[in-house]
């Protein structure tokens, strides 16, 4: 194999690349990767790091959410900066202050949506507003009431517990930027927690992951699954391992 771009050796791998995104068939410069492939890895890593470290575009998000005729509130976690956020997941789950989030009695709202920056600003910049639009459309169609949307900075999934409780929401959906990989740096995850309150365990949540278009789970499908989970949680009285999303359950032969 040579490192050139049009050699027969590379042609051998071309049809296989439709079967996997893995970096198969990379050429050799001696024993090492070729310059092209090395730089391709470095640039993919750079994009992933930027997704983690660059701040999300809060103004654009607020405008986008407000345009859906939704009230918007802001909260920051106790992690003051990205470096602290990355090392102290406990601080990312606690609000620095809830002063800017309107409080209400338990059960005032059926559903709250919290956008938590998480590990990918790019995921929110690219996908958050259309995902919220899809979820809100289905929530309204189901005649469920919506709390103000909270934009949570330096936030982890667990921050939705105190925020959701403070809002008086029966079910909270935390939309979070997922940890970026080299191939995908902008996917969103959504975690649903019924009767949110501080101390909820991860096993009491349900997760829908890899939400992004065009290559991941599309917004409408994600919203459909989430609303199914909301309705199921309201019927069951809880979210988590006992609440299964039957609409995405694998066929029986796959176990």
């Amino acid at each position: 194999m040579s490192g050139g771009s049009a050699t027969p050796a590379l042609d051998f791998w071309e049809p296989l690349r439709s079967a996997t995104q893995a970096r198969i068939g990379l050429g050799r410069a001696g024993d090492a990767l070729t310059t092209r492939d090395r730089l391709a890895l470095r640039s993919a890593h750079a994009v992933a790091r930027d997704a983690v470290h660059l701040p999300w575009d809060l103004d654009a998000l607020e405008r986008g959410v407000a345009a859906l005729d939704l009230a918007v509130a802001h909260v920051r976690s106790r992690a003051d900066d990205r470096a602290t956020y990355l090392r102290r997941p406990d601080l990312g789950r606690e609000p620095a202050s809830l002063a800017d989030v309107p409080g209400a009695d338990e059960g005032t709202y059926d559903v709250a949506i919290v956008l938590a920056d998480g590990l990918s600003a790019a995921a929110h910049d690219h996908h958050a507003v259309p995902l919220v639009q899809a979820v809100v459309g289905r929530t309204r169609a189901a005649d469920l009431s919506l709390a103000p949307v909270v934009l949570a900075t330096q936030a982890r999934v667990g921050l939705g517990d105190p925020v959701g409780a403070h809002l008086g929401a029966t079910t909270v959906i935390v939309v979070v930027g997922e940890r970026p990989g080299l191939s995908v740096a902008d996917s969103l995850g959504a975690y649903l927690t019924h009767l949110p309150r501080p101390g909820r365990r991860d096993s009491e949540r349900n997760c829908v992951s890899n939400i992004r278009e065009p290559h991941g789970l599309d917004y409408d499908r994600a919203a459909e699954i989430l609303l199914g989970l909301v309705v199921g949680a309201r019927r069951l009285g809880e979210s988590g391992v006992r609440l299964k999303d039957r609409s995405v359950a694998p066929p029986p032969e796959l176990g």
Partner: protein
Amino acid sequence: MRLVTAYSQTVAGHTYAFDHLVEVLAKASPRRSGDELAGCAAQTDAERAAAQWVLADVELTEILETPVIAYEDDEVTRLILDRHDADAFAPISHLSVGGLRDHLLDVASTPDSAARLTALAPGLTPEMVAAVSKLMGNGDLIAVARATEVVTAFRSTIGQRGRLATRLQPNHPTDDARGVAAAVLDGLLLGCGDAVIGINPATDSTHAAGELLRLLDDVRTRYDIPTQSCVLNHVTSSIELIEQGAPVDLVFQSVAGTEAANRGFGIDLAVLGEAREAALSLGRGTVGDNVMYFETGQGSALSADAHRGVGGRPVDQQTLETRGYAVARAFDPLLVNTVVGFIGPEYLADGKQIIRAGLEDHACGKLLGLPMGVDVCYTNHAEADADDMETLLTVLGAGGLGFVITVPGSDDVMLGYQSLAFHDVLSLRHILGLRAAPEFEQWLDRVGLLDDLGRVAAVAAGETRLAALVAP
């Protein structure tokens, strides 16, 4: 047992007090984010230095008499103490932790170091090994690891001096058979796969795991490759697959150093023993019968909130990691590797911490007699990059590392992290004069993949007979 505030040390005019061995171990640990998260790390560098002075004077017998997690509370503690070999321990029973460091480095400088350290291993407990590692510099960890030799075998032989084996990890986000086969071919052509061809499945479906096992077994038998395959699912799934007649070579399981953390993985010692018996009953090994494959990693107990020891004190993550090796060694594994940088920056923040932890895990596992490998890896939210991984690979290679994980172009598209590229191993084998596992090396030669100097040749994939592996 010592009384409260039993340990103290003065550094630069300030006296530091520690109330228990668990606190000394934690505060003597080189700095890492996981211990800071757990709240057990030294507050200052001077406190860390004081704890190291204290630890150096702790007698090994005192460590034996002071479990970090109570005997009655934890089956890993019971395993460690019940299996401790007093005869093997006798020659070092008079030593302190500092004395043990000097002794190990002295032994490491002798020609028969491997035999002496093999004889010593059953006399060492994980806590002794973790303690001594905290007094060692990175160079010490390399020297001591290099002095050991732990050899295991199934269809290939792992761990001989002068050899560096590889796990070929052909992961795919949907377990697509053709995608997996393409990655297997890529790795084989670059001389990888001698430790195991091992897939992390995308689902926990036993049926899907069975399909993957048959795919890998077909590849292996079709080309008569002297290696072993593994689908890294839960140990109970492997038992089920063995009962169904699936071609299971190795039983995999993630293990940790506390009973509670293992419960979080859904396992205990009994089920590991049951799985090993099941795998042994198949008799699939040719040159050996080590049938278990374990993965570990610093921080796994903390992430499961299963990291507390006597009196509710948080135990440092490196001591708990080393206790996990006691679990592994009870089952005579073929392979054990720490997935060192996978867990994220809240446990190992940056390249410096990942490199240190990789050297600790490797040396501690080897001293306890384990066939130790390392997944030299990092995530995109840690302060680390490919340069750190190449540095870690090279220093581990200098320390006689048994095997590493390799993926196409260093990018695991299923797990979303970076390990080593097949190319990285080609480079290191050349730099350090290391070779593949002996049976696998002979196979590479038989199928025409080695050049006249015994190195993996750059061949056109389509011109090898292995190309049929991905024929439509």
